[in-house]
């Protein structure tokens, strides 16, 4: 990616052409300075974002005491607890599996379908609109839907699996020993969020300039070569952003697990966000819940940073 267009030459040229406006254009309140462009969104983000952050940091040094019914300062106790909590380590592993599985499947499927739709089938607009529909179902409702669809006795999905002989009555999707509990929560997840990649990647594919693609065809590249060597590299910034945002959202996944398994059986599907909920609202350990919330935030910052470095994302 080329470097950002320097602002200065433009201003120099303007100085020559319209000398008397030059001073005005140097002012901070000019559209040649970046600050004014950022101001609205920064105000919005600070306004909504800063208090929850401060509150949770403050709260992480306090804890609700059920004996006295008061919230008392506990110093670093909550943070020390984070380091020796086995359930946090378990939840971290569960989150990692969930995030990796969901991200890979959703991205690969999304890219394949976006490429297919971009290939110009008839009525592509209709297929595209239909494929976005799963995303429109609120995740809490989708979770309830799939809880029924996956039910061993009256679920349509279980029935389908029975028809093709993949259904083991001892180990249904939901229930049994919970061997497939992770698969069970990943099904609605993938169903709902593959369309996220379809939408972004398709918009990206359509926005690509056509010359390099035509050039590669003139040079005799096959469809596969064009796709791997020309289309994909050009689509990279869009892929980077889409994967990054899905990654950030996946790290705080909550709805499906809350509705479908409540982290169970045992702690088999307990992800970090759900564990934070458990501590905050089930066992009323607000301070520790805040610690877990900040831990998720820090984890997301670290993972997103690593991701941008490993894949050399150009911002």
């Amino acid at each position, binding site marked *: 990616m080329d470097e950002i267009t320097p602002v200065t030459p433009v201003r120099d040229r303007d100085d020559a052409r319209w000398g008397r406006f030059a001073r005005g254009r140097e002012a901070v309140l000019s559209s040649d300075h970046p600050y004014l462009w950022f101001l609205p969104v920064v105000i919005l983000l600070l306004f909504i974002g800063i208090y929850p952050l401060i509150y949770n940091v403050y709260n992480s040094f306090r804890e609700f005491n059920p004996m006295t019914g008061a919230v008392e300062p506990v110093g670093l106790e909550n943070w020390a607890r984070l380091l020796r909590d086995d359930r946090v380590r378990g939840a971290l592993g569960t989150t990692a599996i969930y995030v990796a599985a969901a991200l890979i499947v959703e991205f690969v499927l999304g890219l394949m379908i976006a490429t297919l739709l971009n290939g110009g089938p008839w009525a592509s607009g209709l297929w595209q609109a*239909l494929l976005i529909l799963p995303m429109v179902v609120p995740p809490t409702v989708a979770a309830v839907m799939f809880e029924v669809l996956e039910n061993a006795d009256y679920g349509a999905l279980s029935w389908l699996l029975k028809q093709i002989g993949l259904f083991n009555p001892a180990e249904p999707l939901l229930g049994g020993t919970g061997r497939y509990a992770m698969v069970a929560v990943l099904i609605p997840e993938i169903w709902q969020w593959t369309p996220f990649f379809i939408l972004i990647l398709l918009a990206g594919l359509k926005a690509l300039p056509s010359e390099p693609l035509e050039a590669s065809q003139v040079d005799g590249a096959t469809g596969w070569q064009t796709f791997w060597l020309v289309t994909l590299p050009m689509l990279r910034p869009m892929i980077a952003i889409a994967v990054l945002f899905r990654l950030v959202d996946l790290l705080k996944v909550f709805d499906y697990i809350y509705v479908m398994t409540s982290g169970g059986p045992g702690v088999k599907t307990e992800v970090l966000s759900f564990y934070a909920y458990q501590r905050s609202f089930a066992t009323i350990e607000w301070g520790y819940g805040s610690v877990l919330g900040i831990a998720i935030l820090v984890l997301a910052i670290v993972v997103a940073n690593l991701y941008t470095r490993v894949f050399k994302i150009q911002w």
Partner: protein
Amino acid sequence: MAHPTAISDRTSQVAPAAGARRRRGGRFPWARLARTIVSAAVAIIFCLPILWWALAAIKPTQEILSVPPKLFGFDPTLNWFRVVLGNADPTRFNVETTGSVGRGSGGGTFFSLFYLLDSFIIGAVSTLLVLVLATPAAYALSRFRMRRRKDFAFWILSQRMMPPIVAAFPLFIMFRDLGWIDTYHGLILVHAAMNAPLATLLLMSFFDEVPRDLDEAAMVDGATRFGAFFTVVLRYVRGGLAATAVLAFVFSWNEFLLSLVLTTGNIRTVPVASSTFTTAFATEWGYLAALGTASMVPIFVFILLVQRHLVRGLTLGAVK
């Protein structure tokens, strides 16, 4: 493959069979037909759960959970819709179909037309707001050379990292003190802030694809930086704006936890209303499916309208 007509064809960019759209030769475009069939199959598979859901909204109670699910051969009923959208009295239907008064006899419990309206207002206004606020920032991130630009972009991203489950309570305290509980502007601002990081960074990558010569050319012609952005560059990120609008609307439409915590019932979004149909004792499948199906219609129309703009962007050659 390097046939002249194939080269100028937009389908050629990924498809091996680029000549598929050649009409004049009279050859039937088999490759295109194949792609259409696969697309339709994929779309139908993805929509099966929604079909099941939409059918449940017109099935009588005893048919909703029948296995195998019936596509035909049931007595279609509009009772669920009549109660959810038309405020009909559910008690009467219960007596007619089951012979007892049954659940949901509270009156108005399932009437959700105004919740659909609430969801729509909050979704539409917050989407508009986030586009207005984030587009200039995205443009600036894409165009200006500034110190700590990456850090700034990362800060914006980080605003989406706090799990709602721990942000909800402090936001509730803040909104209570501001007197913003149960207000449209409160939820609109929260949803706009939730979508701002995605909108900013997504639009930034769309601006990155528009050649910088374009801004330069406009400014040589006497436009200010803002003029170049507003009158020239903006129209080339139409596709990006459309995709961002769809995503922002969908995220706002689906958001559950914050909408639940920051309202007490005067304003209620669809996910929050849906959650009241499910209790520990029973789930009102018919009402839930009717509301879910009804709530999909406006978004489906919105997507169909918006996706006209998901068109090809500018080609590099146009500015050279």
